């Protein structure tokens, strides 16, 4: 187990990168604390798998260092870093039994059969694979195969970090949540650092204590699931997390007052610095309400999603979504929208630019 430090990490798949766009990873500085449960969240192609492969040693970064407990491991091959990785598609050794699959990493490292037996039995017990130990691994279902690949990572007692690269992709929906809670439980028992890569926000938010959101090779925000939801540091995070995502509306600033079209909008707090560039208002649909007066808009779509209704409105050429409980208004009906002030934020060039309101005492 170890603390992992990534310092000034950059990676490009081209031999001579010159433009920033040549880099799959742009300048990453991150600390992963020992024993933490992290999720690496981002859309496909944002560089999260590249980052994972750099930590595991399958890729050597173009620039920067990786430290495990302050020891530089940048040039060490995967098998000498004591890491484990679970891949998108279950990797199992077809010709071996489940027992031999689990024992494989230990035997390769020359452990004696007594140790192998204790470890394999313990891990099989944890993963509920005990009654399959003597079976050929090839014939098992995808979720059991994925459990075996996890087991091969966890079976080593000295593992520094366990990494999961979208491990639930091929698992049936009804087994997904089962395996996901199993993972959470394993993390609590084993206390190894775990990094979970996914583009699925539900998976990330349920698994992790800390979520790292990435976009275009950059870390956009690191925070707890609640922080990411409540105060997205970037409009991208607002969009990507939440269903539906945050409303982002163009606005103008006159004397520190924000205007959407001609309608003044009260922000949560003071604006930091003197903003130059593209200014936008961000508000989550959860905090938009229908009222008797306010911003006038026309309802363009109403979708009933079970416990609540998503009302999509058109105001000044922008789409604004509101989540309300109970039945929504008719399509085409004129409505007035109110924004909850302490949840209304200003973004300049995509980044948050308002200070949170002082807590009222």
């Amino acid at each position: 187990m170890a603390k992992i430090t990534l310092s000034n990490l950059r990676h490009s798949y081209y031999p001579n990168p010159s433009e920033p766009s040549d880099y799959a990873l742009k300048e990453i500085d991150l600390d992963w604390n020992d024993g933490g449960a992290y999720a690496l969240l981002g859309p496909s192609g944002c560089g999260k798998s590249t980052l994972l492969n750099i930590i595991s040693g399958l890729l050597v970064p173009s620039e920067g260092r990786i430290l495990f407990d302050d020891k530089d491991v940048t040039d060490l091959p995967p098998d000498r870093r004591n890491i484990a990785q679970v891949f998108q598609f279950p990797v199992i050794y077809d010709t071996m039994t489940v027992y031999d699959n689990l024992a494989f990493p230990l035997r390769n490292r020359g452990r004696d059969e007594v140790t192998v037996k204790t470890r394999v039995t313990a891990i099989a017990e944890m993963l509920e694979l005990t009654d399959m130990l003597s079976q050929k691994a090839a014939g098992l279902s995808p979720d059991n195969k994925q459990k075996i690949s996890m087991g091969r990572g966890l079976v080593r007692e000295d593992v520094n970090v366990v990494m999961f690269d979208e491990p639930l992709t091929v698992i049936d929906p009804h087994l997904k949540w089962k395996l996901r809670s199993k993972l959470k439980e394993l993390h609590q028992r084993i206390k190894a650092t775990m990094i979970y890569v996914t583009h699925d926000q539900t998976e990330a938010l349920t698994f992790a204590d800390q979520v790292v959101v990435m976009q275009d090779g950059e870390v956009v925000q690191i925070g707890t699931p609640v922080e990411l939801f409540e105060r997205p540091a970037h409009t991208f995070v607002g969009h990507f997390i939440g269903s539906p995502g945050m409303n982002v509306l163009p606005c103008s600033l006159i004397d520190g007052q924000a205007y959407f079209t001609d309608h003044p909008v009260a922000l949560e707090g003071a604006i930091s610095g003197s903003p130059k560039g593209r200014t936008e208002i961000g508000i989550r649909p959860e905090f938009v309400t229908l009222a008797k007066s306010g911003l006038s808009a026309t309802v363009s779509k109403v979708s009933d999603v079970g416990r609540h209704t998503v009302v999509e409105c058109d105001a000044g050429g922008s789409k604004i979504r509101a989540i309300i409980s109970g039945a929504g208004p008719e399509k085409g009906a004129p409505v007035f929208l109110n924004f909850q002030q302490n949840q209304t934020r200003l973004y300049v060039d995509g980044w948050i630019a308002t200070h949170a309101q002082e807590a009222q005492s």
Partner: protein
Amino acid sequence: MKTVNQKGWFFVLPVLLLVAFNALIPMMTVVNYSVQETFGNNLFLWEGLTWFQQLLTEERFYKALGRQFMFTGLILVIEVPLGIAIALSMPRQGIWVPVCLILMALPMLIPWNVVGAMWNIFTLPDIGLLGYFLNNVLGINYDMTQDPIAAWVTIITMDVWHWTSLVVLLAYAGLVSIPDAYYQAAKIDGASNWSVFRFIQLPKMKPVLTIAILLRFMDSFNIYTEPFVLTGGGPGNSTTLLSIDLVKRALGQFDLGPAAAMSLIYFAITLLVSWLFYTLMTKDDLN
């Protein structure tokens, strides 16, 4: 009352005729010959199983059969491991992939009798490049028209040259279909190169290798053209394989009855070995 519609027969008739014309009737002709003595003017005399009994008690047949198994065994023992080794050392990506694939496919594109003729000239002791080189530069006494061992070395080398590519291409197809994650997982698990081969590459290649071995078995067991052009079965009878012996009987001696009986036995052996091999190799997958 139940109506019976027989019109369906019209739909299968064309294919039935085709199969009858190119497979059933020729095959039955062979069966017909194998149980009769044939004379000119379509005169046939019933002989029953005489030709079969005669063939199966004859030393000449067993010798040819032995040579055939030796030939097939040797080329399989050489071509399969060699083919796997070449496939493993071929690049998986980049501009050299098509180059390698074309180079590999070239020998297979050459007509069989041309291969025989090429190797015949290549190995002539006086003017052939290889023959001259062996005799006059390396000082090895090599003449496959005189020395049975030299003749065997030559037909085996020729077959390896001609057909190892098939094993290479099939094994390569199996190799490139292995996802990267397998190699990455093996690296993380600390597996040695041998373990990667034994537990990942070989199991993933097994289905294509089964096909490769089956094809090479059938082709080499029925081989005729190349050794016929190269050695003509000689010197003496040392490279007279089953097919060459069969043609000698049928066309050389015009013993149609015994030749037909031999054809049927030959066919049965090929079929039996192929079936046994395939059943054994795929037995695990069925369970």
